[in-house]
């Protein structure tokens, strides 16, 4: 990380942008799970909209296949009678949204939309991409300094 900062430090003067402030951008993965599709889709749409308003890069809601848990119980409270069983289902729907932004912005976005019955999990990837000036795409950075940045997380960045 120190090596990376030093290399980027070199670029400071060369880029020569008006607002030369540092933005710490991380890859942030928001996982939404719920029993209820309507509320889930609503929260997804709100999150994506909120992120696009702030002009972040969003990887749209990825719909992971729904898990159907089968819960089979005896209907009878006692053991008597023909063995009748109830078959219930528990459907878990899951959506994944990837953002590239700083963590404070994400906290703003996730605090706005709260619907009951939807579970939200936010994981922040450990890779710190330090930009200066305008937003540069991750791929281009790899071209600049393949050795330093890709050290531990090369596969992740390219993918």
């Amino acid at each position, binding site marked *: 990380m120190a090596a990376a900062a030093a290399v980027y430090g070199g670029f400071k003067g060369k880029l020569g942008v008006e607002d030369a402030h540092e933005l710490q951008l991380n890859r942030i993965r928001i996982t939404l799970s719920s*029993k209820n599709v309507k509320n889930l889709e609503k929260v997804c749409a709100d999150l994506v909209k909120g992120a696009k308003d702030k002009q972040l890069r969003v990887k749209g809601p990825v719909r992971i296949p729904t898990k159907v848990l089968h819960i089979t119980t005896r209907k009878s409270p006692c053991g008597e009678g023909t063995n009748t069983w109830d078959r219930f289902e528990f459907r878990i729907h899951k959506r994944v949204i990837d953002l590239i932004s700083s963590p404070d912005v994400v906290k703003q976005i996730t605090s706005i939309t709260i619907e009951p019955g939807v579970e939200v999990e936010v994981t922040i990837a450990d890779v710190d991409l330090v930009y200066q000036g305008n937003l540069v795409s991750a791929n281009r950075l790899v071209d600049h300094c393949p050795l330093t940045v890709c050290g531990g997380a090369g596969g992740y960045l390219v993918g």
Partner: protein
Amino acid sequence: MGQKINPLGFRLGTTQNHHSFWFAQPKNYSEGLQEDKKIRNCIKNYIQKNRKKGSNRKMESDSSSEVITHIEIQKEIDTIHVIIHIGFPNLLKKKGAIEELEKDLQKEVNSVNQRLNISIEKVKEPYRQPNILAEYIAFQLKNRVSFRKAMKKAIELTKKADIKGIKIQIAGRLAGKEIARAECIKKGRLPLQTIRAKIDYCCYPIRTIYGVLGVKIWIFVEEE
């Protein structure tokens, strides 16, 4: 005779909504359920306690005291919303009542992160709710009114509310007789097989000196 499925459970996808609306991964689901159960028991105990206190002062008719229709629980990340639907909210409208309830619930639930948010909703037409009718019948039966009269009085109450059909069934040692039986009174129509029909159901046990009487009330509210 065939066995009838609980009409609330039958209609859960369409006309009926869940009373507990939250999500948890299967690992943590049982804790959430236990919390729910504790909350509901706590609220019911609180109301029963206060009802006894109230009846010591004056002999009010119990039919005008509060009956909880249902308790909705919604859990979000940091708050638990508890919405109590009540028929005649007299007791709970007193000043300290809701805060007392909140304190009791906080003790029960041991919530570290979560705030409790209790709100009370008055039910619009109380005599359309089977729970309230069942309490009314229970009160009558405890005062040794003949059960058929009690059922007829309950049906009269519902005439004012807009109802398309009602069925009341009481089972057990009616009038203290040794041999138990089931009696029922029907009015209007009651399409139990029609899923889009809104049918409210309640099963309420009444404890008498002779044993337990089971009261089941089906109310056909409207067809969608």
